[in-house]
């Protein structure tokens, strides 16, 4: 970043360079944003990442195929189950494995529960950044219910390790589906509660409307995916366009925004809550009987070749690119396309010309998880 420039002759009006993060309450972890301010207006920003880099991609090249599932948990740690699904499906694609229908249904179910949990965390922190602190605790209260469901399913509450290549590690406990449906009922009414606090709140609308506007073309140019892309009016959703798991058998809509501002991204995610509940209901009620693991060889050793497979994680398009040399029991090359990293690229363009208070709103609006940005 070049030295601050001096403008004007009478007064010494330097630009103020301030460092937001890596320890800052609203940068959602360890994101560092260097802001150049003119008064309170942001002239330019530099987004600095890498504080949470653990080398997951390189580590994976030295683990066997099953051990990697555990590492994928640690990328987007608020949506571990979707990471697992993405990875397992990529390996299955590489090995041309058939996954039983019941397993695919449960995967869909878990993915959508995970989406709601992740969106709850997003909603809470986003509202908190804008100053509405009560929504934060309400959203976490409902997220807790999902974590309880996950705990009952696989014993873990955050990093689930809940998938296996070819299917699932264990069947869902008996009576679990009833609890899921009960949760759906609770969540329906709680969503209205969130909306009462925010959607029609004048301050909320003023804080989010016309803030960080991205046109559809800009959003595509920046390579955005997920709710930030759909908020700009591009109806791209991997679940619809390239269905995986059991999404081809589900009925749901893809909500899109019109203006591409923070408010639209908010509305898109709120509607996604409802669509996820719709999918969860269908998947639970139509849960087929049958095995939960397909025909998987004892030693997982995919044939030589490479493949890319993407799923729709709560943050956007989560893709895995894996190369197997066909000889060893670990991948030759392992690469992730993390939605948070790609979406974060939009921050610099969005904050320019806005105020300091909008920076935190925009970081929240992109919904990045630093574990996934840095890996």
């Amino acid at each position, binding site marked *: 970043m070049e030295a601050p420039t001096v403008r004007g002759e009478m007064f010494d009006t330097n630009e103020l360079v301030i460092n937001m993060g890596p320890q800052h309450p609203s940068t959602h972890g360890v994101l560092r944003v260097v802001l150049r301010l003119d008064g*309170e207006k942001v002239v330019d920003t530099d987004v600095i990442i890498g504080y949470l880099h653990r080398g997951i991609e390189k580590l994976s090249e030295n683990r066997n195929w099953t051990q990697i599932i555990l590492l994928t948990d640690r990328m987007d740690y608020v949506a571990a189950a979707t990471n697992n699904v993405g990875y397992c499906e990529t390996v299955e694609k590489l090995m041309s494995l058939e996954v039983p229908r019941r397993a695919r249904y449960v995967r869909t179910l878990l993915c959508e529960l995970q989406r709601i949990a992740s969106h709850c965390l997003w909603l809470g922190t986003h509202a*908190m950044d*804008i*100053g*509405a*602190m009560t929504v934060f*605790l309400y959203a976490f209260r409902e997220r807790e219910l999902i974590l309880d469901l996950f705990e009952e399913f696989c014993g873990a509450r955050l990093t689930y390790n809940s998938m296996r290549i070819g299917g699932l590690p264990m069947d869902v406990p008996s009576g679990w589906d009833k609890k899921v449906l009960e949760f759906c009922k609770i969540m329906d009414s709680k969503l209205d509660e969130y909306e009462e606090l925010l959607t029609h709140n004048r*301050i909320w609308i*003023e804080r989010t409307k016309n803030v960080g506007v991205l046109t559809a073309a800009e959003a595509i140019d920046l390579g955005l995916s997920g709710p930030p892309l759909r908020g700009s009016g591009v109806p791209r959703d991997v679940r619809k366009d390239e269905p995986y798991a059991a999404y081809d058998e589900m009925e749901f809509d893809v909500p899109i925004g019109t203006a591409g501002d923070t408010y639209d991204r908010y509305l898109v995610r709120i509607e996604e809550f409802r669509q996820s509940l719709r999918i969860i209901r269908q998947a639970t009620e139509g849960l087929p009987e049958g095995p939960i693991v397909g025909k998987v060889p004892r030693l997982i050793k995919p044939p030589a070749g490479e493949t890319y497979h993407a799923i729709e994680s709560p943050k956007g398009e989560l893709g895995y690119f894996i190369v197997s040399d066909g000889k060893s029991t670990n991948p030759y090359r392992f690469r992730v396309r993390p939605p948070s990293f790609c979406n974060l690229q939009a921050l610099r363009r969005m904050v320019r010309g806005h105020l300091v208070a909008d920076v935190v709103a925009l970081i929240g609006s992109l919904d990045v998880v630093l574990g996934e940005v840095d890996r």
Partner: protein
Amino acid sequence: MIDGFVIPLLKIVIVLNATLVGVTYMVLLERKVIAWAQSRLGPMRVGPHGILQPIADAVKLMLKEDITPARADKWVFTVAPIISMVPALIVYAVIPFGPEVSLFGRQVTLYITDINVGLLYIVSVASVGVYGIILAGYASNSKFPLLASLRASAQLISYEVAVTLTLVSVVLMSGTLSMVGIVRAQESAHLWFAFAQPLAFGIFVIGSLAETNRAPFDLPEAEQELTGGFHTEYSGMRFALFFLAEYANMIVVSSVATTLFFGGWLRPFPNWAALSFLDFIPSWTWFLIKSFVFLYFFVWVRATLPRYRYDQLMRLGWKLLIPLAIANLVLTGIIRVALL
């Protein structure tokens, strides 16, 4: 001797201590009420239902290490919290908690003093408090506090205008600047001024939220943006002074609102004989109940609303509240002249 010296001194000691205790319990009230709003319990460990939490907090803050940043302006850094705290306390000198009562066979007024420019005194002294915030931000020699203190000065000055204009409308109604006089005027008018001046009351409430740096106008401390704002660099008792000043100011604003708009120590409908059975309740209780309602409202708002942005806050102040306050003032003047 006793009337001129001992009793006023006693009153000062009582009011000062009551205020400080009130302030610490205001913190507990805020934590409790917000916790209930957020389906939590709030402080529960110190004493039954956390009732002793303020004492634990006070002890903790006093024992904490008091850090002065190496590059801070040491004198200003020390003075800033004091400048913040002192005006918030001396304002209580003119707040009437009740009328004259007889206590141990002696006529005692339930206020420290009643000066004929009481309201002017409150407005001018209370506005000194903002210097504490400005100086704190400047003296810290740190960027986030500096931004916060710039916000604070702009915000407090612009809202001061709107609030003071509404106070002038009330003075037009009562014909006096004395706080006791204003309550007496409401008694003789058989009307709480909140009902005669609803617009002024609304502007006063919004403006006072902004003046006391409370949500949704808590920009100078905006934790999520400025990591604590002007008191980022403060610790221990100096930080506590800022905190106490903020809550003391809230109580001041509530007391002023009670006195000006809700009839101070008067019981509801003081001219209705049917309600005279309420007279056994001491007058200061009414004052405390009314103030408490305002304080509760402050906390409630904080639990509910998001925060305004700096430019929106200024727009609301200058483009909406001040014109409305001026219009209200002119209208009040015209009606007063037409009626007299």
